[in-house]
């Protein structure tokens, strides 16, 4: 370069991609699924990792090869652009989850803007006390008693398809019916179940669905944050009325033949004391918002991903048709292969050193559950969806995790003190709902024409890290 400066050397040789975009939104080329874009190599051969990839379209559709680079070369990756440390190996994440004193849950403040103060952000004793208040209603006998209600919800929704005239949801041609399983079923089903379990009147279900949608899209300081806050206010106004009523007159859940099972959750919460004080309406609302928020999107994604993966693996689907008990394995393998939640943020309370990286106290550490679930140190051939795999634990999810006979728990529900208390109910929803769906859907297959396509315009869009948003199915009418 004719700068006349004898010392210019490489000074003005601009890094090429930066000349194109000096900001963080560099347009990474879209790669074939499973292959990573070459972000360059250090002279010793170590692949480099460009943190801008984490916000790119490429990453959202094709994350796993990038997580592999992190696991293999940067198990604790310091992303200096987003001031975050990513922890990507199964064992490390497990350890951090169990130590909720060293790695606490403070950073979830981003969601509490909309949800309110919830147990998500609590730690230690405070957390345990509150969590038990809700947790007990989502497991064990009280849930078992609710299974018929879950099944009834599913049947009611499917039978309503006959009356749907919107062709984007349900349509018919030559004895073949096409449904978009999201709009026709999976988006709403989990919210209805949660409403039911919480003991809200049926009339409120549509409102809940709206509040839920608005709150979800308002998380994380997004553009629709304001709308999320408003929806949250409506939810609160509604819950307040219910709470006041239940404080005076508790109500009961009933089994299928009308016998009272127990007081519903809200009635119980109304008479619960923490630190000698009754729970405030605000506290009850926040945690209802959390259950509504935490139980919807996640379970929706699990149901759609499961059907998507099964129908793309017809021999596994066939096996499942012949053996009803395989649904449990299918559910867990779905969550291992393509969970609906990517990971959980933590703050380290102390300086920690992991894999030679010093993480100063108070840093944001992102525990990447997606990556843990694809850690080849734990799961063989992790990119393959295989409901018969012999290294995945497919029983009832345990807070203590599972590590016996060569089988490990997947990380989609987390593990340890914050393990998702909705794990069992979402399992029931997905499995019971799918069993019933299968009864109605004769010879189901993916309608390739209507499905969103990948970059080649032909193959299906990969699941990536956002779950399938729409799943168009054809089936024969009996």
């Amino acid at each position, binding site marked *: 370069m004719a700068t006349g400066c004898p010392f210019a050397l490489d000074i003005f040789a601009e890094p090429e991609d930066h000349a194109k975009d000096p*900001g*963080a939104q560099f347009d990474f080329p879209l790669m074939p699924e499973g292959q990573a874009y070459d972000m360059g190599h250090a002279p010793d051969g170590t692949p*480099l990792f460009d943190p801008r990839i984490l*916000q790119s379209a490429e990453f959202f559709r094709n994350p796993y090869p990038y997580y592999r680079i992190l696991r293999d070369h940067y198990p604790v990756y310091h992303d*200096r*652009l987003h*001031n975050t440390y990513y922890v990507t190996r199964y064992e490390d994440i497990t350890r951090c989850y169990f130590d909720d004193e060293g790695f606490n849950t403070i950073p979830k403040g981003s969601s509490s803007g*909309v949800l309110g103060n919830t147990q998500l952000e609590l730690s230690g004793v405070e957390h345990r006390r509150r969590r038990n208040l809700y947790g007990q209603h989502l497991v064990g006998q009280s849930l078992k008693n609710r299974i018929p209600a879950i099944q009834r919800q599913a049947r009611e929704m499917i039978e309503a398809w006959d009356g749907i005239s919107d062709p984007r949801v349900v349509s018919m041609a030559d004895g073949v019916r096409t449904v978009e399983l999201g709009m026709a079923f999976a988006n709403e089903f989990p919210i209805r179940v949660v409403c039911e379990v919480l003991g809200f009147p049926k009339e409120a279900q549509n409102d809940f669905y709206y509040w839920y949608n608005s709150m979800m899209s308002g998380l994380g300081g997004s553009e629709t944050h304001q709308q999320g*806050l408003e929806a949250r206010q409506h939810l609160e106004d509604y819950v307040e009325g219910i709470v006041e009523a239940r404080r005076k007159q508790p109500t009961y859940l009933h089994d299928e033949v009308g016998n009272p099972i127990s007081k519903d959750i809200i009635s119980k919460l109304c008479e619960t004391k923490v630190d000698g004080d009754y729970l405030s309406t605000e506290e009850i609302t926040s945690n209802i918002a959390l259950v509504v928020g935490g139980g919807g999107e996640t379970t929706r994604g699990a149901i759609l991903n499961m059907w998507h993966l099964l129908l793309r693996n017809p021999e596994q689907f066939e096996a499942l048709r012949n053996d009803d008990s395989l649904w449990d394995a299918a559910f867990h393998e779905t969550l291992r292969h393509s969970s609906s939640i990517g990971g959980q943020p933590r703050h380290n309370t102390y300086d920690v050193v992991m894999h030679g990286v010093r993480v*100063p106290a108070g840093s944001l550490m992102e525990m990447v559950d997606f990556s843990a679930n694809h850690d080849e140190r734990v799961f063989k051939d992790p990119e393959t969806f295989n409901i018969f795999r012999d290294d995945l634990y497919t029983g009832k999810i345990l807070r203590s995790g599972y590590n016996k006979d060569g089988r490990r728990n997947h990380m989609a529900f987390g593990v340890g003190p914050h393990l998702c208390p909705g794990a069992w109910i979402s399992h029931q929803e997905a499995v019971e709902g799918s069993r019933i769906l299968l009864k109605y859907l004769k010879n189901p297959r993916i309608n390739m024409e209507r499905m969103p396509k990948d970059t080649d315009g032909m193959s299906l869009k990969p699941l990536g890290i956002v779950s399938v948003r729409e799943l168009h199915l054809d089936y024969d009418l009996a």
Partner: protein
Amino acid sequence: MTESALPVIGANGVAIPEGTRGDAGFRTYEVFQRERVGQSTPKIKPAQLVSREFADNPYPLLAVLRENYPCYRDWLNNCFWITRYDDVTSILTDGANYETRSKAWRLGIEGFGRDLRTALPVLTAQANAWDASCRRLAESAIADFARRGEADLATEFAARLNMQLWLAMLDPPAESAPQVAALLWRLHRGVSWDPHARWLGAAAADELVAELAPLLEARRQAPGGDLISAVAGLELEGGPAQPQDLVATLLEMDFDTLHGALANLWLALLTNAEEFDKVRGDSRCVKLAVLEAFRHSTPMIAAQRFARHEVERFGRLIPKGGLLVCSVAAANRDPRVFANPDRFIAGRKDICHREARGQYRADGLATGITPGLGPPTKHPAVPEDRPRSLYALTRDAVITASGALLEAVDDMVLADEAKPPSAICRRLGEMHACWHLPVRFRPR
């Protein structure tokens, strides 16, 4: 803290210092919920703050933050943006509450060597070298392009002068000077989020060690007046300075402000005819233009500080370890402090004309914040035995060089009026500077 000092717990290499576990209990986010159900910040999206738009011209977006969300919680980039002048200066001068992390930490070579930047002989060596050679080096750079009647002031003048002042300070043998210059450049560019730059930077640190080790040894035996000799002669607690210490010191020193400020000053002059006239007509005005350039188009547009403990400020609770991005660019254009802040006015009335003290002020007037040059001293006067501050040194170098250029040429204009150059960040987080400034002129 090194890894070996920590007990390793578990088979997965995780270590937590046992001693520190006792002092912290559980903390909940409830205390952070000042806004009961969250604050809406619809006027800006965090992605905009790491966009090309921002890298090219951060000022409009920063004004949105400053005027609406003076302590903006950015969830995407996990930081708080501080944008008002008094807020920024209050953080930059508060080492008790906010930690400055070293460039070595940011480059990922923490513990590489000792930072000896503030040792008196080191400061003196830099001041002497710059004072002795600035005028001469500026004149020789000008001589190299003057007869052409055209030049790129950003590269041939600003970047070159900065690099040559550094070389004058280190005084390497002529044959290795280009290599040392290139390594220094890569070393400082490595303080970045960019993996390529970081790798090159870390490698440059090692190469510099190899390149400078023999010099350090030689000058221990036969010292000169240069910075390497000064480092070699230091009496240090842990034994004499090693080549790694020398390189660690060079890394922590400010590398950008002189280069960027000189380029940005000339960009401002060439795009503000009235102000340029003022400066050409009165050589004392050069100094005022330089002070204004430090304010109006400071090259280091932000400084990072981390909360040492949970601290309540700006109506918020900043958690321990929280990152505060002190936006110097926003602060320097805060209308609460400077009238017409977006205008470049040499000799404006509301900026102080002498070196600021304490809270970035002198005579009750604010100064342009230049974070690379360190906070202003709290002492009322510079002690006799100390060289001038880095701020004064840098300011004077820009003044001297600009004065020399004004004397050497006439009728300087932008080479292409139709395509006026601008200041940009070539890479997000790097200095905001004019990287190409083609001009035409008449040599005297």
